[in-house]
């Protein structure tokens, strides 16, 4: 029964990891940018939520309604300025520039928010409560909600990409930038929209992580970016549902590792990552994000 519990917990944490990963995957799929500041931007989303909750006294759940659009706008702006400038000099430059961005954000957060870790919504029933299935299996409300949100976000992204006019342009630009220009599409604007979506989902991931665990200035690279990256690679680069599968596989591996020995949790996840890289380097789902 303990093993079943481990797998169930793993599946649920997979939803959280998919939230971390889908934006990273989207930006890579559309503009070939590996955004090394993705995790740090998610953490900023979390900190903005903390600010909104503690200073503006907005209820915890409502903070999402403010933070996600704010981070989406930040994503658009960042893409149209820093990242696009780097992209004009070549895709490799974006690696260096987003790495620099990541360092700036982490040190900025240290400066303004200290190294103390903070949680979001501590004490809420949503965060602490769980519901039991039998004596061994506990389903935390929070993870259930996060997983549901993750699936909803992926469904929403999928709908947007396959059905909306902008989604079609995003896929067209991902296929052939120049041909899209010849059809009148400004690919820089389209990139901006993709980045807005990516950072909106990253902000959700940051807030969810702040509720699930604690946020500190280094959580962006130590945890969020790393897990997102692993989930994306396991699932398959550029595939939306692959990120969910990748997140779930990572989650299960970690929980099973923890079940064997609590100190093996992270190791087990990375072993599976390595295994996938060796046996199926294209990822479990080898398909571009599309309908």
């Amino acid at each position, binding site marked *: 029964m303990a093993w079943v519990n481990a797998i169930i917990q793993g599946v649920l944490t997979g939803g959280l990891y998919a939230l971390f990963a889908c934006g990273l995957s989207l930006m890579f799929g559309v503009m070939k940018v590996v955004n090394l500041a993705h995790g740090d931007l998610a953490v900023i989303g979390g900190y903005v939520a903390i600010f909104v909750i503690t200073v503006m006294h907005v209820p915890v759940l409502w903070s999402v309604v403010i933070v996600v659009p704010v981070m989406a706008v930040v994503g658009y702006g960042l893409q149209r300025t820093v990242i696009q400038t780097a992209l004009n000099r070549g895709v490799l430059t974006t690696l260096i520039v987003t790495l620099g961005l990541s360092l700036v954000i982490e040190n900025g957060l240290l400066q303004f928010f200290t190294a103390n870790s903070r949680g979001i919504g501590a004490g809420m029933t949503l965060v602490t409560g769980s519901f039991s299935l039998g004596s061994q299996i506990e389903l935390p409300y929070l993870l259930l909600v996060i997983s549901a949100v993750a699936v909803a976000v992926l469904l929403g992204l999928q709908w947007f990409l396959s059905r909306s006019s902008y989604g*079609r342009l995003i896929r067209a630009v991902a*296929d052939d930038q*120049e*041909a899209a220009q*010849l059809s*009148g*599409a400004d*690919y820089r604007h389209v990139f901006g929209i993709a980045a807005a979506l990516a950072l909106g989902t990253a902000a959700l991931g940051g807030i969810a992580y702040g509720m699930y665990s604690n946020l500190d200035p280094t959580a962006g690279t130590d945890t969020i970016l790393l897990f997102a990256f692993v989930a994306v690679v396991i699932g398959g680069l550029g595939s939306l549902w692959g990120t969910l599968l990748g997140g779930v596989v990572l989650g299960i591996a970690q929980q099973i590792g923890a079940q064997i020995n609590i100190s093996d949790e992270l190791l087990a996840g990375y072993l599976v990552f390595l295994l996938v890289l060796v046996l199926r380097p294209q990822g479990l789902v080898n398909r571009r994000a599309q309908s």
Partner: protein
Amino acid sequence: MTAVADDGRTGTGTPLLEVADLTVHHGQLRALDSISLRVYPGEVYAIIGANGAGKSTLLRTIAGLHQPTTGSVRFDGAEVTALRPERRARQGIVMVPEGRRLFGSLSVEENLRVGATYARPGPWTIERVYETFDWMLARRSQRAAQLSGGEQQTVAIGRALVANPRVLLLDELSLGLAPVIVQRIYGMLPQILATGLTVLLVEQDVSQALRVASHIHCLLEGQTTLEGKPAGVTADQVEAAYFGLAGVARPAGGGSES
């Protein structure tokens, strides 16, 4: 220096597209050397020339994909040389690029929808494209990458048409296609022209170009070697201009010595 003389072309009034003294470099290489041309409304203006003559560079510069070193592109009387390609497309300069360049993971219909996103008002709609190319409707949900070369070329033309261009730039339609398919695609040109647009095309296949064009313009190593109505030039002149054979007198309006 190439002076484009008024050669009594049927197109009257102001040119729709005017290229003046256009020089384009690819790095150190001078791909185009002060090329000038005027395209009048309703014309089929064909640019012919051998591989590497600079035909595609000329078309891509007109579409905005290359920036010229010197010279200008004017469209409908307005300077567009500094405009980005997407701006030019929205104003009505729409190109069917070499090699089709469809959005491979999108369906046929989605390709057309992308083309229609920033369309000008005009006669062409997705429905009209389906009527004109009747096989397309039944296969509209198929992915563009799964189509044959000729079908892809037709969809690429459809994608450009739904934007309702005023001048349609066709870059090397025949490339990689069987002659019978090429015939069929060029056979649709009158139907397209009947909707009131102007065509500027690049073609390596000279006989094909001579068949459809109302005006031809031959390039050799980035320079103009011959210009005129197909009826007004002899096969020998075209051959000399195309291959750059020495000793053949160049007609008036030809480029400088290379």
